[in-house]
């Protein structure tokens, strides 16, 4: 069994709890607003579309949504140890991780890939297939980000901080300054997938598609495996 509906239900309600849902809605709403304003001011322009979708949607929104959904799917439960109620059950721990991963991917994609697609259509009506290309990149990125940040959630109480550091410092800052860093960036791997679809040379990745595909798979599978191992050995220290 790879999926447990009860675990999924609990995870979904935890991640989409009131405050978190607001934060999750904030960035997509901002993206849509930007798209509407830009379209009204500049009209349909592939280069501007690529700038907004690549610069904001893919580079900022997807990883941030991924941090919130990925760490939120397990971090708080481990933090306050309420996860005991899930773990003290005859349910294989890998099942729990895979279920939580599925929910985290679903939420990340719903709050990032879908708005990216909508914003793409608003910006340029899918000229040069940019809307679909970036939405696909966002969807692919959602999988790897969710898996990576879910693992962080099983490792550290400060998973959100580490997640933000990865997304903002490693990918965004160092990625734009240091060349090699881009090879190890989920964002660039996702772009490589989108590059196949987008036309007009607006969407370019620093990583070749075969390499990107392999790295995406390795990161997703590897982090998920590691998270399951962490959960199998989860320890509650006496707090006396």
């Amino acid at each position, binding site marked *: 069994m790879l999926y447990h509906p009860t675990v999924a239900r*609990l995870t979904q309600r935890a991640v989409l709890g009131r405050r978190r849902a607001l934060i999750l809605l904030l960035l997509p709403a901002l993206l849509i607003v930007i798209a509407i304003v830009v379209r009204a001011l500049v009209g349909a322009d592939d280069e501007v579309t690529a700038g907004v979708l690549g610069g904001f949607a893919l580079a900022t929104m997807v990883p941030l949504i991924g941090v919130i959904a990925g760490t939120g799917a397990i971090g708080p439960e481990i933090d306050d140890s*309420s996860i*005991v*109620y899930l773990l003290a059950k005859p349910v294989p721990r890998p099942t729990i991780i895979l279920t939580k991963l599925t929910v985290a991917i679903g939420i990340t994609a719903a709050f990032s890939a879908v708005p990216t697609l909508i914003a793409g259509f608003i910006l340029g009506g899918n000229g040069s297939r940019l809307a679909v290309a970036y939405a696909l990149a966002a969807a692919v990125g959602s999988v790897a980000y969710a898996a990576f940040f879910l693992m962080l959630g099983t490792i550290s109480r400060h998973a959100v901080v580490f997640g933000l550091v990865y997304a903002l410092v490693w990918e965004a800052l160092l990625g734009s300054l240091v060349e090699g860093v881009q090879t190890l960036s989920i964002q660039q791997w996702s772009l490589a997938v989108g590059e196949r679809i987008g036309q007009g040379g607006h969407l370019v990745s620093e990583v070749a598609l075969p390499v990107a595909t392999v790295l995406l798979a390795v990161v997703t599978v590897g982090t998920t495996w590691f998270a399951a191992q962490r959960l199998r050995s*989860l320890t*509650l*220290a*006496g707090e*006396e």
Partner: protein
Amino acid sequence: MTTIRIDSVSRWFGNVVAVNDVTMAIGPGVTGLLGPNGAGKSTLINMMAGFLAPSTGAVTLDGVRIWRNEQVYKHIGLVPEREAMYDFLTGREFVRANAELHGLGRAAAQKALATVEMEYAQNRRIGTYSKGMRQRVKMASALVHEPDVLLLDEPFNGMDPRQRMHLMDLLRSMGAAGRTVLFSSHILEEVEQLAAHIEVVVAGRHAASGDFRKIRRLMTDRPHHYAVRSSDDRALASALIADPSTAGLELDQRDGILHVQAVDFARFTALLPRVARDHGIRLYEVSPSDESLESVFSYLVAA
């Protein structure tokens, strides 16, 4: 599946030894795990519940290793000490989710809620519950699959007397039905009221094991210290030291207090008033000076 065996188990965290070479078997009936705070009770329960690996030794349920074996949860119910639960769920949703994770449904959940008398508040969010109500919902979540073994970490904390009595009745009836019930407590009276069998841990060591009368006797037979004020401390002192139940005396002349160390509790408590009467000495004050639980327990370790 009914007996948890802890075999030569130690557990340390860095340089701190939390549990030191403990061997015990917990079988059917109600067992109290007694010890002062910080003695290693939670560490032991976490190991029995599969949430902590022993550093050395083995923790098993009828011969089956508990650590990293989620199948044991078919037979174990755990009531953790921590308060944290899924506060955004209602009590009913929470217990229902616990039942589903055991492959059970609505009926099991409702039965467990009825057992802990929480049906009246089952549609309220757990976040709004009092500590005692949370404790009962935790209990219901551990009972949904009617486990053979029930582990409870400080279950009476935060309960009012009525809830406490109700939970005690429940645990008693489970023990009488042949289930293995283990609960930890740092309060002697709680353990005494409920458990026929007691395991005492102090500072990570297994200090005593047996029925509560034996433990009680061990506790009362230890040297007792009393502070006595009387009309003639010196005369009282000389009369007391003549009897073998008194092991030592110290006369604090400045504060007018006679410190007595008695070895035979029963004999000394009968002796003191008799001696006072026979010598025409008035007793103003007799108070035990080392009744703290820690001193009681630390004596047990030495015994």
